């Protein structure tokens, strides 16, 4: 008998407290956002799709040293170097396989020229497998720049060396 009284007491005294909690949320502002219409701003350090930086004069920062490819835990970076007429190295081919990439940011951390960064773009699903191979023309930021860089650069000025005689 006591057991039954206790159970009834619980149902009528303690359970309504729980209902009050759920009912209170009925009047609160929703915590969700309507995703494709509204977007959440990403944190400054967010690691999304890669982009390649340029100097202010439009030359590419990447010198194709291969350190990003060496640091990559999933081996998704492929590059081929070449020299221009001044004798400066640049990447003729620079490809990132976005399906292999795990977005750990080791390439960004390894880069001694501050050339590669992981940006804030995260919507890159596609039905075409080949479109996931990011080539250089897809990654290089536009010159002159249309939008502000996602991440701050430590070294802004370009080092100018003498031209190499050939």
């Amino acid at each position: 008998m006591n057991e039954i009284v206790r159970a009834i007491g619980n149902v009528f005294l303690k359970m309504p407290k729980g209902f009050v909690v759920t009912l209170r949320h009925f009047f609160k502002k929703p915590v969700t956002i309507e995703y494709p219409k509204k977007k959440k701003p990403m944190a400054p350090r967010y690691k999304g799709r890669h982009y390649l930086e340029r100097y202010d004069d439009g030359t590419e920062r990447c010198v194709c040293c291969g350190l990003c490819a060496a640091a990559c835990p999933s081996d998704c970076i492929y590059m081929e170097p070449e020299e221009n007429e001044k004798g400066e190295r640049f990447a003729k081919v620079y490809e990132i396989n976005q399906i292999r990439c795990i977005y750990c940011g080791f390439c960004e951390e390894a880069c001694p020229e501050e050339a590669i960064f992981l940006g804030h773009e995260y919507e890159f699903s596609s039905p075409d497998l080949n479109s996931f191979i990011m080539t250089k023309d897809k990654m290089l930021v536009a010159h002159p720049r249309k939008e502000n860089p996602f991440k701050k650069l430590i070294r802004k000025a370009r080092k100018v060396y003498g031209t190499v005689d050939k």
Partner: protein
Amino acid sequence: MSNVSKTVTLNMGPQHPSTHGVLRVVLELDGETVVKAEPVLGYLHTGIEKTMEDKLYYKAIPCTDRMDYLAPMSNNLGFCLAVEKLMEIDIPEKVQWVRVCLAELTRINSHLVWLGTHALDLGAMSMLLYAFRDRESIMDMYEAVGGQRMMTTYIRIGGLAQDIPKDFDKGIRKVIKTIKAGLVDYETLLTNNEIFINRTKGVGVLSAEEAINLSLSGPLLRGSGVNQDLRKANPYSSYEKFDFEVPLGKNGDAYDRYLIRIEEIKQSMRIMEQALDGMPEGPYRAHVPGIVLPPKEDILYKMESMIFHFKIITEGFKTPVGAVYQAIESGKGEIGFFISADGTNKPHRVRVRPPSFINLAALPKMCEGNMFADVVCAIGSIDIVLGEVDR
């Protein structure tokens, strides 16, 4: 009729929603009573331990994120501490405190997901929504600190990936405020809930002796009343400087484990507040040339740093010959990393002591002889992540 068997064999999983992943439990039922319960593993085997042997030490850190994906920072911390022990690196005090703060944040993250899913298994739908709502604040903090919401890879050998952001203190305090407000909701909904108590009290009982014999750890062991917490028993990363209590259970049932995890969330917040109040100043990486990467500012302007940077990234560092074991207390229990080093730049063997896997061994003991409907509650109360069980 002679060909009628008395028991029925039932496959629970691998696609059952309340097995928290791809666990398959082969149940032998006599009516509604479980005669035998056998967990079948391996559906999510990814060979993480083997992959780590093929990578340089610093490249193996992202692998650890992907084991227990609800507690990435704890896994990072365990592996990095093991390597630091092997290389005998002294860690700056600030780094240790930040690591403690993040490890406790991870514990809350892990417990919140457990709370939501466990309550959902028992029929409390709104708990899942509330737990994930509050977990979002932790995910935002991860994103602000490490740049990723789940696979953070923020803790590195010898320090941290980057210095903590400027609003670290403010962000963590905001998280604590959110969780504190959330805890009121959880406790009102569950702690005195007649249905929840009926479903969890006296379910999956393990005595202290059984728990020790099964070498359990974490809330499962402490729920049975055994006072064993590595943060107290074997302090790492300056845990000895923090003041907190280890909650203990009495009956060793699912309800006690629930109470312990709720109390652990509160204690974690206490530790985090202490860590923020007394956060020391200092560098975010140890200065050990040739082993720990120099800061990025130095690489761009100093030749020597640049050389070390190139050497570490391309070749890694050579370790002494030997073996180390370092265990930490993650949200699920003792996660330990055993590294056997052969003097090269890659580990010869990495063995992980996964808490989920060893705690899962208690499932037959918890289920056998009990009702079939309580299997779901028993699995839930173990708190398994199949990514860690199968590795």
